[in-house]
């Protein structure tokens, strides 16, 4: 099953490798990974998406929670949440197909952020599925290059990662 996991970590070298190692050590691939500072520059928020057996992933999440530089871990599959990613797409856009490309982008609420005589550079945000659908539509028109950020996620409502506790941590 697909899992989206967010981790608050101390903003230091080596933390990322240690976290990635818990997944690679079990032969799990990380599908996407995003890391950046939070409001507190000493703390980074890392979000990763992976697939695997639920029980094994639960165990990995528990072990993430043991790493010294990890502050908080949450697996969003246990809560209602929102996921987004951002993609930059360079698509062929010449006199012939410019109108068509623009329409598609509009439907997906993307923005054209750079224009050349032969291409558009498009910025779009959304779920992985939405971006996938846009790519499907643009593919026949000639996608030149794409760059995607990977998923970021947040709980709905007032539940915060800074206060989120894993079930087992509650027991503790």
């Amino acid at each position, binding site marked *: 099953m697909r899992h989206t996991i967010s981790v608050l970590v*101390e903003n230091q070298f*080596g933390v990322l490798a240690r976290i990635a190692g818990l997944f690679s050590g079990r032969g799990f691939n990380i599908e996407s990974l995003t890391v950046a500072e939070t409001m507190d520059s000493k703390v980074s928020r890392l979000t990763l998406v992976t697939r695997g057996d639920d029980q094994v992933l639960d165990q990995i999440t528990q072990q993430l929670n*043991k790493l010294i530089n*990890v*502050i*908080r871990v949450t697996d969003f599959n246990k809560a209602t949440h929102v996921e987004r990613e951002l993609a930059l797409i360079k698509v062929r856009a010449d006199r012939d197909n410019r109108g068509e490309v623009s329409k598609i982008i509009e439907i997906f609420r993307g923005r054209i952020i750079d224009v050349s005589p032969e291409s558009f550079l498009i910025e779009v945000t959304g779920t992985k599925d939405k971006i996938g659908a846009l790519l499907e539509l643009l593919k026949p028109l000639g996608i030149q290059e794409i760059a995607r950020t990977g998923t970021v996620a947040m709980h709905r409502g007032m539940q915060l990662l800074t206060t989120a506790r894993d079930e087992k*941590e509650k027991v503790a």
Partner: protein
Amino acid sequence: MPTLMKPTNTKQKNDRHPLAGATMTGADMIVQVLADEGVDTLFGYSGGAILPTYDAVFRYNEGRSVKDEMRLVVPATEQGAGFMAAGYARSSGRVGVFLVTSGPGATNAVTPIRDCQADSVPVVLICGQVPRAAMGTDAFQEAPIFNIMSPCAKHVFLLTDETKIEETMRSAFDIARSGRPGPVVIDVPKDVQNFEGIFKGEGLLPLPGYSERVLNVGRSRLSKDETKAFYDLLTQSKRPLIYAGGGVINGDAGPALTRFAKRFQIPVVTTLMGIGCFDTTDELSLQMLGMHGAAFANYAVEDCDFLFAVGSRFDDRVAGKVKEFAPNAKLAHLDIDASEIGKVMNVDWSHVADAKRGLTQLLKGGEGVKADFSTWVKHVVELKANHALNYNRESSAVQAEHVLATLNEIAGGEAFVATGVGQHQMWAAQYLDFKKPRLFMTSGSMGTMGFGLPAAIGAQLANPGALVIDVDGDGSIRMNLGELETLTTYDVPVKVLLLNNMGDGMVRQWQDLFYANRYSGTDKTLHKKDFIKAVEADGFGFAVRVTKNSEVRKALEDFVAFDGPAFLEVMVDPTAHVYPMVGPGLGYKDMITGAHIASRDAEEVDDSEPGATEYF
């Protein structure tokens, strides 16, 4: 250059460190924090990238009396240093420290670091590293220690910020001993050791997530509901059993566990790591369970209807077949590590706390609880009598079990014992008694051959005056053979008992059972080594070989009584197998008890083969 100071007992907590404000080098700061932490012994091997710190140790010791100095013990290899530090830590509960150079020095230390992580042993390893500017250039004696050690240790620091030397050092000790203990590695580039700066004398790294988790577990409280739920399970059961592991020893919870077991009259089985947490000579002790556990211990696991796991983790040498482990029992689990709860087995009750705190609160919450398990205790006492450990008493070849049973009569459960890995390790676990925690030291989870000799040296240095015995095998002792010389160099009065079966006995046993007696790589009958000549050359004043049953007792008595390092080699039956045996991946109902231990399953065929399995 200021003289580094030993902390004085009169120093108040809020007092300024007497050296605060002094200018000193990074290496001096490292050694000063070691002194402040109360480190009296350092194990390690010097080299280019750690020279400044070794020099600081020399200067620290200069002019100090022997009793006040930081003793430096130099092994044959860095792996030896690591296991000495581990033996020091396991036997005393204090953090063991070892100090090695960069590159090969540090990579040789990987095995003991991983071993300490797997067995939750608090050690701190300080590695030299090439200067910061040279890092990542394939410099001489450079290895990526931060990367190599990261997945093997509880935590690794690469000390690139010269303003954080003290804080990092202190935090390393904190991390090593707090929560579930483990090894911490500090990789220190040479130019950071040579840095000169102001010593602050205080400060820790913030570690917000970890500190909060440790604090939370340290403050954990059993609610009334949780306590009631536990005692409901206990009082509804008729055949409760405690399954205690290394967490009881790490948590200094032996006395609490004993009070709990006695209070309700609940029998106790322990894991290999838990041996000694409950006096093995007590009537309620059913000794070790698992793959080579006592038959009566494993029968009790089969029979019990409530199993209380304390500081143990249902590992594959205990619950080889999870579905069939304790098939009739409700399960309760008390552990300091939340990730262990439900990792292997779903449990009916759990609580995350250190074993001492958890057991003490349970005892308090159960003051009014009445329970009578006398019928069950009578049953397990019968199991002990009817299915006692036994071995081939007819053979003219010396049986290792006989040697250990005799040693047990002499040592009386009071000696420190370290072991290598293999048959002799299992027989030591089966036949030796331990009346107190921390007496038995063995590489439980990693199963590192070569652990015993250096671990015994570390234990002896932490416990001067105590009887420390290394029970070793010929395969295991070869792995760190160089430390025999270390032993005599420092005149450490360890007693080395070598049970020589001329091969890797445990592997050979599996080859007998699963590989049709094809002894690929395990037969050592053609090896030329004369261990007695070897240890005489190393300076042992007692070096004796025994080949006959009739010589065993006298030789053991002389060996134990010898004042100084002693070596006793006993040539034992190379064909013997360790029994009982629960084959890999099998349930306890498939336990083979062998030809000499009474099985309670009438249909058992003595030499039935459990069948090969991929899950070893």
